[in-house]
Structures are given as structure tokens and as C-alpha cells.
């Protein structure tokens, strides 16, 4: 009985592990049936059975079907290459000729049961469903925060962007924005105030050449809502993405370096910062050199890795250094008679910012994330000293029907 259960479980696993046949239509009009059942490949490729294939196309779901003659059927099998059955058809009746403008249906009466595979007609609506989620990105992270010299407070990071590709040019153009709430709280913090203190918004233009990612921001704004400061700082950044420094089937260590420039002007200066009057009269033009790096160690999941959740664990560190050519604000704090008071400067010292993330998927249901932040971000470069946030993620999928 126990053995029967084991066999049943193994056969269920095997049936789940074997991919179902699927139909791919090449730009040349050749049809490729991937993952064919090995037991039926010979039957499909047998020249005597060529007349039993039927191939029909439709320009749209409502248009009449056009039957196309099958010219040849061949089977390809390789230990390392793709395994497929190729069905060659006469596409001379297609107008327009591009086979991707049609929906396809292929049928073949296998001895084990009829094979029927389809590729639906292309969706030509303007607001068609997205093929992938690469273009649109939304990110939200809320956390409980404990930092040096501050009482625990809440922190919210939110990012949103829509940067689609211009046709198939390899050039991406779009908009994105990011807001951080209370990440650079002025100690001591006795309460949580939902008031974004760091906001950026930009028009982004992206492309890749070789191993370089080129990010340009022809229009980019930096805002600090608490202190009414804002900058217009277009920028250009180049990131070098070499092969991993260390690589095994489940582990990888990468280091990507970044360099660029930020140049623009101050738009709006606060008259006071944290209730202290300030004089930022020399704060006008902005020119910064940017250097940075992203280092990460990834450990892939043994099983159950998905596109949105591929790693069992991930440790990453992002550094951004801004070399200032002009004086810019710097907001930090100092201890005066045992109390923390804001210290506001205007200088051209290099500004550093470090973000670290440790992500550990304890199980398929529970993940732990720790974030570390140090340094200062524009526009006011409000210093954040060793801020640590922890988050726990619970993931579960409910049944689709009851």
C-alpha cells in the first residue's frame, strides 16, 4: 500500500514535470512543436502521415479560416539542443505574409488521441494586455525602524515607474518617481508622521550597449517636502555589467560599477530647516560627479524558484558617492548639553550613501528582509546614521476554487 502511494506520488510528479507540447510559429512560417511526446514523434514525422495534418490560420477571431497545405514534417532531437517537430507549410496564400499577423491551429490524429495546438490571433487593440510586466514597476515597502539616537519609527518606501521600449529600438523612455517617508528622521523621533522627506521624479531614457547600461534623465526633480527645497538636476549614468565574479549552479557574486554626472540648478530654498533659520544664498548651480557600485551575492532556490521570487537568499550593497563641484546643503545633528540639535551646513564635501539588503526566504511562506542605510541623499543631504529596518514577508496562495 505504502509502495503504491509512493509510485502514485512519483507518477504525479513525473506528469507535472513533463512539459506539455506547445506550438511556436517562426517568422518564416515554419511551425515548431516543442516538447513533443517522445513516443509519438516518429508517428508525427512519418511521411506517410503527412496528409493527416491540418493547418489553418485566421487573421482575427471572427475572420474565416484559411487552410494551408503541409509540405514536410521533420523531427529534431538532441541531448543539448532543442527538441521539436518542425511542420513546413506553404504560406503563399497569406496576405500579409508575416505569419505573426495570424492565429494558427494545428491538428494531427495521433494514435493516442488527437493533437490540437493553437496560437491565438494577435491582439491589435490599443490597450491590449501587457505581454510582460517588465515595463511597469511598482514597489512598496513598509517597515518598523530602529536607529541610533532615535526612538523606533515607521518607514515607507514607494517607487513607481513606467518605462516602455520605443517599438523594438532598444531605447526605453518613460517616467518614474520615488518617495521615502521618514527614512531620515531627525532624532529624537517621538512619533510617526507620514510626510515624505525625499521625493524624486524624472523622465528616464535607457538603453544598453555591450555590457553597459546607459541611464539618462533629461528632466529630473529632487524634492524635500518637509523643508520646501527642490532641485532640477538632469543626469546621465553608465553602469558596467560584467559577468559574475563568482558563479556556480546556485550561487553567484556580482559587482556592477556606476559612473555619471548630475548637473542642474536649485529651484527652491527653504528659509529655515527644522525651525532654524538658514542662509543658502550661495546655493544655485549644481554639478556633481557620481561614482557607485552594486555588489550582490545570490543563492538560487533549490526548488520553487519563480521569476518574482528566484532566490533562497540575497545579500546586496549599493554605494553612491556624489563629488560636489558646488556648495550644497548638508543636514546633520550634534549633541549640545545632552540634546540632539540640527546642524545645517553648506559645503562641497563628498556625499556618501549606502544601502544594504539581506533577504532570506526562510520557507516558501515566510521571508525575512533587513535593510541598512547610511549617508545622505539630495536635495538637502539629510544625514542618516546607520538606520536598520526589518521586515517579514508572508506569502501564501489560496486555492482558485472551493
Amino acid at each position, binding site marked *: 500500500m505504502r509502495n503504491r502511494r509512493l509510485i502514485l506520488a512519483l507518477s504525479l510528479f513525473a506528469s507535472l514535470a513533463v512539459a506539455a507540447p506547445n506550438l511556436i510559429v517562426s517568422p518564416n512560417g*515554419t511551425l515548431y512543436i516543442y516538447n513533443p511526446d517522445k513516443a509519438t514523434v516518429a508517428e508525427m514525422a512519418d511521411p506517410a502521415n503527412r496528409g493527416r495534418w491540418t493547418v489553418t490560420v485566421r487573421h482575427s477571431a471572427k475572420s474565416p479560416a484559411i487552410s494551408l497545405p503541409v509540405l514536410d514534417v521533420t523531427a529534431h532531437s538532441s541531448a*543539448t539542443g532543442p527538441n521539436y517537430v518542425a511542420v513546413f507549410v506553404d504560406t503563399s496564400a497569406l496576405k500579409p505574409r508575416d505569419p505573426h499577423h495570424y492565429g494558427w491551429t494545428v491538428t494531427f490524429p495521433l494514435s493516442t488521441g488527437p493533437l490540437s495546438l493553437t496560437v491565438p490571433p494577435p491582439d491589435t487593440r490599443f490597450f491590449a494586455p501587457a505581454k510582460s510586466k517588465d515595463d511597469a514597476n511598482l514597489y512598496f515597502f513598509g517597515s518598523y525602524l530602529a536607529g541610533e539616537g532615535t526612538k523606533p519609527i515607521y518607514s515607507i518606501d514607494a517607487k513607481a515607474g513606467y518605462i516602455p521600449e520605443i517599438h523594438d529600438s532598444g531605447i526605453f523612455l518613460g517616467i518614474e518617481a520615488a518617495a521615502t517617508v521618514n527614512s531620515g528622521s531627525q532624532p529624537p523621533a517621538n512619533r510617526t508622521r507620514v510626510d515624505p522627506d525625499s521625493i524624486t521624479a524624472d523622465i528616464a531614457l535607457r538603453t544598453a550597449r555591450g555590457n553597459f547600461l546607459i541611464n539618462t534623465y533629461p528632466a529630473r526633480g529632487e524634492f524635500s517636502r518637509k523643508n520646501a527645497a527642490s532641485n532640477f538636476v538632469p543626469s546621465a549614468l553608465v553602469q558596467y555589467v560584467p559577468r559574475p565574479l563568482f558563479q556556480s549552479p546556485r550561487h553567484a557574486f556580482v559587482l556592477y560599477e556606476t559612473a555619471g554626472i548630475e548637473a542642474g540648478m536649485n529651484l527652491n530654498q527653504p528659509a529655515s530647516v527644522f525651525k532654524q533659520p538658514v542662509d543658502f544664498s550661495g546655493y544655485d548651480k549644481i554639478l556633481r560627479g557620481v561614482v557607485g557600485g552594486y555588489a550582490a551575492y545570490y543563492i538560487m532556490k533549490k526548488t520553487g*524558484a519563480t521569476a518574482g521570487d528566484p532566490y533562497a537568499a540575497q545579500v546586496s550593497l549599493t554605494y553612491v558617492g556624489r563629488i560636489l563641484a558646488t556648495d550644497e546643503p548638508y543636514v546633520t545633528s550634534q549633541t549640545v548639553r545632552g540634546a540632539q540639535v540640527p546642524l545645517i551646513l553648506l559645503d562641497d564635501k563628498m556625499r556618501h550613501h549606502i544601502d544594504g539588503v539581506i533577504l532570506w526566504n526562510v520557507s516558501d511562506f515566510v521571508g525575512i528582509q533587513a535593510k541598512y542605510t547610511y549617508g545622505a541623499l539630495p536635495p538637502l543631504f539629510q544625514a542618516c546614521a546607520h538606520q536598520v529596518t526589518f521586515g517579514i514577508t508572508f506569502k501564501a496562495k489560496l486555492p482558485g476554487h472551493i
Partner: protein
Amino acid sequence: MARPVLTPDLCQNIVVNATPNQTPNDATQNLFALGVVDGTSAQIHKAKIQAALHLIEYRIAQGDILSGPTVTVDSCTQSVLASAQ
């Protein structure tokens, strides 16, 4: 260069040659093993596939290419074959 017939084998060669490690073909291998370990390296991988297709006079949008650490060589190849024009 004349436009060649786009076959599964040609697509797989393009997909593998665009990875950082370019190790021998194995259709069932995931791209992590070939050096496409995160979203950033997947962007580079897609751009290299697109550039390689342009060289042989085919066009493809990067959004139509499946790439990433969990994507197999086979799945990536099929996405290229199904979407190249």
C-alpha cells in the same frame, strides 16, 4: 548579410552566446547557470539578443524576450522564435 531562416537551433545559439558565460548549449539549463543572475544582467542579455537579431535582419522588442535567472534556455529560445520578425 542575407536574412537566414530563423530556426530553433539558430535562436538557441543566439540566446546562449548573449549570456555572460556562453557555456555549451543545454536547453533545460536555467539562465542563472549561464550568468544571467538578476534583473540587471537580464536587461543586458535581452539587449544582446536584440542586437544579434538586428545583425541578421530580424527585429524583436526586448519586452517579448523571456530572460532572467529562472528562465530556461529553451523558454528564452521559444520566446525569441515566436516574436522575432
